[in-house]
């Protein structure tokens, strides 16, 4: 336990970490403040009305909304709500299937995978039609914009910052003894090279903490400015919410029923796990590459190179390779706005992002275990 405490002390006493944290919060604060005042007023007004009238839009809702004192925002909301219908009742996932099968047509395997995914999605559409999820107001006509900002911009930035902090933290811990010339001293002690296992575990445990340290103040500011009290219970599959992939727009079709609160909770949990996967990737590099600086370069190459390679595979129409490369952590981060949905061209499985993070954690965990075993028989020079 004392060794754990020491490793965390090395990590959290690093001034650069707190500078990075401060800059991350500043960046997120500026992002949040960049949302226009009228949009904020509209969302807050809609949320207040939804808190009063409920989220489900029906004739009673419309009557009660109409009876409320008229404001410019309320008029717009009423206009939008009157046009709502249960879009999932006659929604055909066959269109999506045909579109994506056409895109990946060069690969029969990828085409079969896409076909299977959209067949499964048809059942979900039928279920959503039954629940009437599409008739939830969410944030009315501002839904897509606010949802996209929260999950596609702000939380994507938070994830990137937490992943960077976790990776740098893992590299810092694993390179600490090399940088201070204490590797010989620590490896000749009773704990010996086992200390590096403690380092990996400390870095892994710190990663969700980094995520929390960045996410909590950022989301705190966001929810202080944007009133979600009437929105939390809305379904994320409201008809006002949609996704666009390859210029094709489709409803926000999730693989399970999510309210906004549940979706945020699931997103944060998966985000913490993804951050841990990035920490494991950094730990693997730190264990296999002796110099911490070189390890950082290899890590950057793996993350950026992986993104580039995936794009290149898509350009080359190697769709099986492309779809398999979509399981890597950097790509999972990249398409975070569509987590728990069908993911368009980036996914072939229900809950692919969850499966990808689980697979990444498992494979990287095994890789780190192998690297730790290798390290126990590795010469230590300093």
């Amino acid at each position, binding site marked *: 336990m*004392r060794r754990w405490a020491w490793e965390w002390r090395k990590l959290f006493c690093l001034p650069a970490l707190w500078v990075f944290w401060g800059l991350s919060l500043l960046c997120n604060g500026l992002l949040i403040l960049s949302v226009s005042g009228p949009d904020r007023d509209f969302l807050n007004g809609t949320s207040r009305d939804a808190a009063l009238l409920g989220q489900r839009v029906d004739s009673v809702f419309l009557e009660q909304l109409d009876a409320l004192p008229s404001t410019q925002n309320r008029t717009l909301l009423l206009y939008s709500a009157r046009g709502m219908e249960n879009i999932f009742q006659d929604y055909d996932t066959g269109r999506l299937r045909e579109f994506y099968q056409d895109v990946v047509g060069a690969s029969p395997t990828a085409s079969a995978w896409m076909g299977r995914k959209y067949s499964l999605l048809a059942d979900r559409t039928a279920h959503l039609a039954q629940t009437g999820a599409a008739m939830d107001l969410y944030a009315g006509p501002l839904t897509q914009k606010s949802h996209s900002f929260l999950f596609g911009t702000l939380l994507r930035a938070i994830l990137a910052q937490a992943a960077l902090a976790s990776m740098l933290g893992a590299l810092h811990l694993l390179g600490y003894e090399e940088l*201070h*010339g204490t590797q*010989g001293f620590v490896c000749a*002690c*009773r704990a010996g090279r*086992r200390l590096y296992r403690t380092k990996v575990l400390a870095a892994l445990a710190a990663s969700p903490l980094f995520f929390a340290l960045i996410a909590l103040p950022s989301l705190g500011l966001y929810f202080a400015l944007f009133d979600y009290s009437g929105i939390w219970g809305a379904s994320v599959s409201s008809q006002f919410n949609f996704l666009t992939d390859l210029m094709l727009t489709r409803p926000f079709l999730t693989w399970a029923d999510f309210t906004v609160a549940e979706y945020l909770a699931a997103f944060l949990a998966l985000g913490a796990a993804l951050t841990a996967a990035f920490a494991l990737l950094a730990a693997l590099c730190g264990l296999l590459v002796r110099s911490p600086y070189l390890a950082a370069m290899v890590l950057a190459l793996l993350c950026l190179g992986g993104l580039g390679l995936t794009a290149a595979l898509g350009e080359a129409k190697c769709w099986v390779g492309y779809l398999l490369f979509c399981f890597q952590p950097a790509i999972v981060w990249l398409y975070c706005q569509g987590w728990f949905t069908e993911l368009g061209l980036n996914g072939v499985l229900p809950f692919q992002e969850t499966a990808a993070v689980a697979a990444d954690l498992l494979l990287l965990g095994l890789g780190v275990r192998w690297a730790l075993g290798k390290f126990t028989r590795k010469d230590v020079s300093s």
Partner: protein
Amino acid sequence: MLSVEHVTKQYGNFTALEDISLSLSPGVYGLLGPNGAGKTTFLKMLATLLFPTRGQILWDGEDILALGARYRGILGYLPQQFGYYPGCTPRQFLGYGAALQCIPKEEAAPRIRRLLELVGLEGQENQKMCKFSGGMLQRVGIACALLNDPRLLILDEPTAGLDPRERVRFRNLIHSLAGERIVLLSTHIVADVEAIAGQIILFQDHRLLCCDTPARICARLQGRVFQVPAGTPLGPGQYLLSEAQGEAGPVLRLLSDTPPAGARPVAPSLEDAFLSIYREGQV
């Protein structure tokens, strides 16, 4: 009892140490050799930092690599370049060392206090180490190496960079620590080991040359070391060992099988032996 059995260390095609066999029992051993002779490689293998390419090292008959933590638990090691955390105080750093040595917290505190007194840092235990001189850092290093009261103490060039006063202080400290332990001290400052080592280990060309007492090593040169006034030309078969300041002015110490004209025979020192070995290639 530490036994080194036919140990070889290779890095690719380069052989750093070849077929080293030694047995060490409690006492102070001085490890001498020029730069690159393989001293540090040898000590790092004893400290389990490097792994032999061939051969094995045994502690009380068991392979040290198989013993693992049990072996490291009786080992104290001061590396050639003692690394430290600049933001830590000696007390904190020793506390970290105690955690690495798996010493219970309640036992560690009094032990750290005693060690800080032993190395003369009791007044500076709460100062940050980034402000310490080389000598003070070495003292922290020796305290770290002694944390677990080791039965095998390995000190790799502990007096390098120290001023003469610090060096003498350090030598005295090491001498007082010997007792029932094996102390292995690597240096190329001959005076350091001459004063305290019971046995000298000499490496040459990456091989073990000898492991013997200083007296017996010096005895090999008995009758072959002479002193002549400076400026005396060297004849065939005569090798200059060193220059010194004699009572009547500068003098040369020579190695020769036959007494040079006008030379005065002198008692060979360990330094003469060292210079002789690494000049001639043999004693």
